[in-house]
């Protein structure tokens, strides 16, 4: 499979009060169809900015981003985003939050029953069938994030973009959702880009880990290919030499080559 998402010499400069702020420069990355890529780096390194560029929420000030052979013109449902803080609409039930996305993407060709069935299916896939008619305020943080993932998956996107999807969750919930995400990605063969600051999460989930240098003017420092067979099991991998090797490489990059800006 060839490159599906292609980032070519992309750069991002913001106009701030203190003048121009270069967030990203010279980003070159090609992502294959069905690949799971993680973006990792210290906070402020522009990994979320890069994700927003792929989402089309912001447009690059230099270079180009191409998805499925066409330049990314702006945000769209074919590049679904799972937001860091779930971003569910609190006045809609979990079901209606997902339904909003389903209606938008499939409403033109499908009837109400089919749309409802789609919504129900995807909520069942993330294990939320029992709580789908509750409001986001009535369910736990983990469940909210599942709805956020369900909403993104329901659109059957070409690319699934996730901005620290499990960052706000406790360790146990996070582990469970990571396992579920791996199963879902295996099933849907989704091309996925995930921003994370969790080394274990990156190694466990990714085919490749994109390690970013510290900002300002951050760029890709190194790319690590995680050559572990799938399906992956976190228990078995805990003592796997290849896993430990990947893990230490990422840690070495983060803490030796790119010390945290505050520590430096």
């Amino acid at each position, binding site marked *: 499979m060839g490159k599906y998402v292609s980032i070519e010499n992309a750069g991002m400069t913001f106009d701030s009060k203190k003048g121009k702020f270069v967030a990203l420069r010279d980003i070159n990355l090609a992502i294959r169809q069905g690949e799971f890529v993680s973006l990792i780096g210290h906070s402020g390194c522009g990994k979320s900015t890069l994700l927003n560029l792929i989402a089309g929420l912001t447009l690059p000030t230099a270079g180009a981003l191409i998805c499925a052979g066409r330049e990314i013109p702006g945000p769209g449902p074919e590049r679904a985003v799972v*937001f860091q803080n779930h971003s569910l*609409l609190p006045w809609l039930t979990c079901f209606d939050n997902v339904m909003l996305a389903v209606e*938008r*993407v499939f409403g033109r060709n499908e009837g109400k029953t089919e749309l409802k069935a789609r919504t129900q299916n995807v909520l069942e896939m993330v294990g939320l069938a029992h709580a789908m008619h509750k409001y*986001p*305020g009535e369910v736990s943080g983990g469940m909210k994030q599942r709805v956020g993932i369900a909403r993104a998956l329901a*659109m059957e996107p070409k690319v699934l973009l996730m901005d620290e999807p499990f960052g706000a969750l406790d360790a146990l919930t996070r582990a469970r959702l990571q396992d579920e995400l791996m199963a879902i990605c295996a099933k849907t063969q989704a091309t996925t880009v995930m921003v994370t600051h969790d080394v274990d999460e990156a190694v466990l989930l990714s085919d490749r880990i994109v390690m970013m240098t510290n900002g300002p003017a951050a760029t890709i420092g190194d790319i690590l290919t995680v050559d572990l067979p799938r399906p992956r099991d976190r228990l078995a991998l805990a003592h796997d030499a290849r896993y430990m090797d990947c893990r230490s490489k990422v840690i070495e990059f983060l803490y030796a080559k790119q010390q945290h800006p505050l520590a430096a």
Partner: protein
Amino acid sequence: MTAITVNAMPSITASETPRRIAKPTPRQIEIAAAPSSATEHAAAMRAFFAAVLPPILGLLLVIGLWHIATIKGGAIPSPTQTWEAAAKLFADPFYSNGPNDQGIGWNILSSLQRVGIGFGIAALVGIPAGFLLGRFSLLSSLVNPLISLLRPVSPLAWLPIGLLVFKRADPAATWTIFICSIWPMIMNTAQGVQRVPQDYLNVARVLNLSEWKIVTKILFPSVLPYMLTGIRLSIGTAWLVIVAAEMLTGGVGIGFWVWDEWNNLKVEHIIIAIFVIGIVGLILEQILLFLAKRLHTES
């Protein structure tokens, strides 16, 4: 022998005990349950009194002071005189002896009607205007200086303009209500639109929602609390202003009624009117607070 008596005794007690035990148990449960329900009851009563007693005491204190102040007579009627006048007044609130002599019920209703119409039109204009101002920064920078200039103007200053344009007193009063209620609704709605969380708008952009869906599913629900605040402020101001406006324009209405009773030197009626205006204002406020609470969604 002893063995028999020992055996016999338990058989007697056994037949006795169940009855003895069976009887006390319900009573014991009652006794056990009674104190807990009694304490609960007492706690509820205490909470009730703590909430209700101080306001009643405050009211009684004011009436007491009022009574002492009027005990030697004078221009201000005593609480009893006022109460008697009120009883007479509210015995027949809906009489009508021509346009200048109508029951207090009619006066209140006409004032409420004016407020309703003026406020209603202001809502129809102000809320969409607020949406536009909040959504389009060019428009807001165009109009905001004007609003800042006009907002502090007493709505009564607009009354002559209303009289000039509408040629009649009644629409002029409604116009004044319109002017004073429109600002809080524009300002609060616009502020609400500007404060829609960027996350929600990003969701809208990723889903590529139509402008209609953005308005109905995202903007309107998230602006609603701000809008209700604007509405509450507007109604409050409108109810303040209607009394003054009606004093100037005449006709039927609680403000005109106050002025009329002043001309008749029925001071007890003026005091009654003050209470009535206060109570109606309070009810309007409470209705809107209730609505706001009902529509509040947890995020």
